[in-house]
């Protein structure tokens, strides 16, 4: 065994690319990594640049003068920004919980081989992967029939369920939850509800964590539903991402919604450019800090998804 390993590692060592090629490849990957990360750093620097510096030399990696005016300004508008932040956090949490429940229950039911309606339900979740009603009829149904317009449900429900997540979870339940466990629980008189909540959920936490992460990143980043279903008369319901989109042209949104009196003088000296970038920073920093820790769950999610069901 040991000898075998030695041989393998020796040959792998021998089979490596040459040092100059390795240096070239390393440089390529270092530049790609920088291209991926630099915009985030750039935006952070802009958010800490003074308005005068931006006025004089534009956006720069080396501002003439640093300043925290943008963040002070946002702090003064904390009722508006804080509220949007809470809306974002709220839809992320509630959406993830509802999404996990809806996807995993269906995934579990489809994993039960002797369920009478199994084929029918498989078709039910499968057809929407091929054919959808499209934006117009979804929009009209959601607003006119389901009356979701200007409600938080509009930001949560339309993206809670995905046939892809259901298939991933079904495959996971089929391969890792032993049938004998479920059979023996049934013999002990447990109902399917008990089996699902007391047995299946606790031993499937890794898969649920993966899907939960997919869901929570999707909710945190979502703006499309707010753009469709929340009208400008209900700006207090905007999540942070959509606030960011609304202030692309002007910052009025922020000032007109604040309960706080903002002195005329401060309004005039509004550091508009850096304020926008400061909001970008508030949106991006939680993700940037969180995702390296969760990366391995994402990768495992990608690989479970590759298994055909």
């Amino acid at each position, binding site marked *: 065994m040991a000898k075998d390993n030695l041989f393998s590692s020796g040959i*792998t060592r021998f*089979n*490596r690319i040459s*040092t100059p090629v*390795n240096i070239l*490849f*390393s440089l390529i*990957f*270092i530049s790609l*990594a*920088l291209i*991926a990360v630099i*915009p985030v750093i*750039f*935006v952070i620097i*802009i958010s800490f640049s003074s308005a005068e510096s*931006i006025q004089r*030399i*534009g*956006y*720069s990696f080396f501002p003439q003068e640093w300043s925290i005016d943008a963040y002070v300004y946002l702090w003064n508008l904390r009722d508006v920004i804080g509220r949007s932040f809470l809306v974002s956090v709220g839809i992320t949490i509630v959406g993830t919980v509802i999404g996990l*429940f*809806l996807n995993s229950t*269906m995934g579990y*039911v489809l994993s039960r081989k002797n369920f*009478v*309606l199994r084929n029918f*339900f498989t078709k*039910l979740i499968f057809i*929407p992967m*091929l054919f*959808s*009603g*499209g*934006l*117009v*009829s*979804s*929009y*009209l*149904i*959601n607003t*006119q*029939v389901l009356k979701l317009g200007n409600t938080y449900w509009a930001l949560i*429900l*339309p993206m*809670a369920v995905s046939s892809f997540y259901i298939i991933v979870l079904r495959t996971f339940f089929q391969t890792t939850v032993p049938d004998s466990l479920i059979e023996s629980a049934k013999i002990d008189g447990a*109902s*399917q*509800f008990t089996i699902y909540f007391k047995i299946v959920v606790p031993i499937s936490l890794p898969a649920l964590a993966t899907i939960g992460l997919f869901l929570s990143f999707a909710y945190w*980043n*979502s*703006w499309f539903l707010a753009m469709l279903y929340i009208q400008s008369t209900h700006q207090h319901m905007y999540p942070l991402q959509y606030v*960011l989109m609304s202030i692309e042209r002007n910052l009025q949104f922020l000032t007109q919604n604040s309960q706080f009196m903002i002195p005329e003088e401060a309004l005039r000296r509004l550091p508009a450019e850096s304020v926008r970038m400061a909001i970008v920073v508030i949106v*991006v920093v939680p*993700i*940037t800090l969180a*995702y390296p820790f969760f990366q391995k769950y994402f*990768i495992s999610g*990608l690989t479970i998804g590759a298994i055909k069901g």
Partner: protein
Amino acid sequence: MRRRYRFSKEDLELLLIALPTVVWYILFCYLPMFGIIIAFKQFRPLPDAGFIMSLIKSEFVGFDNFKFLFATPDAWIIFRNTLAYNAVFIVLDIVIPVALAIMISQLHSQKLAKVCQTAMFLPHFLSWVVVSYFVFAFLSVDKGLLNQLYKALGWESVEWYMQPRYWPYILTFLHLWKGMGYGMVVYLASISGIDISLYEAALIDGSTKWQQVKYITLPMLKPIITIMFILSIGHIFTTDFGLFYNIPRNSGPLINVTQTIDVYVYKALMGMNNIGFSSAAAFLQSIFGFITITTANWIVRKIDPNSSLF
């Protein structure tokens, strides 16, 4: 004898567990599927009838909505843009991530590979709204970094958001930038699954590294490349709304090169309030999408039954 299904207590319990999700599918997937007939109607919301009654009572106009849509120059542009961008994306989404995955698997330092991979994954987790601000920081006419650089070099500054000719490249670059980490991880997972003894045997036969890639790695990746290719063909009528709507900042002069079916459907629905045009375009998108995805799957099943989606 006819098989009789006995609906046991267990079946009932499983049905109840699945019920919320079934209701979700009916409300959010199947109701809109029937709503698609709106494309053949002159839809007018009736004051005291609900949406469904209004839809039924609206005048049936046959293919008029489609005729009017194709009478506008927009129809040609949105279909051309959607198909052209997707054709380019489909090819590059395979070539570049596969090349990167093979290259990163060869790096001597595993630690460097891991760090670079993590960094390259970051754009995948950012929304297009956020990315549009990144782009603006570089391309803004008066404050953007690129024009500052041009000024320092003594070149004339460029009005990026007014010049259509740059945008196919900008949008393609951003698409690749956002997807490179994700694509690389998918192919890297397959590469790490390849049996190492194949490479050892090749080495003993005196193969070069390039020959190993050509005769071992690429053939081993062929199934997953085929699946990814055909799946993306199946989505050739769908575009990433955020990329085409948020990044160009809705700039008028760019419309010819940035407007795709999805953007048009949204704008016709919300901006112009033209349900006829947008429902006709959305209908075509759904139907063509259905045809391409079933055809694509049919081809996969011919090539390799195990890789097909259904």
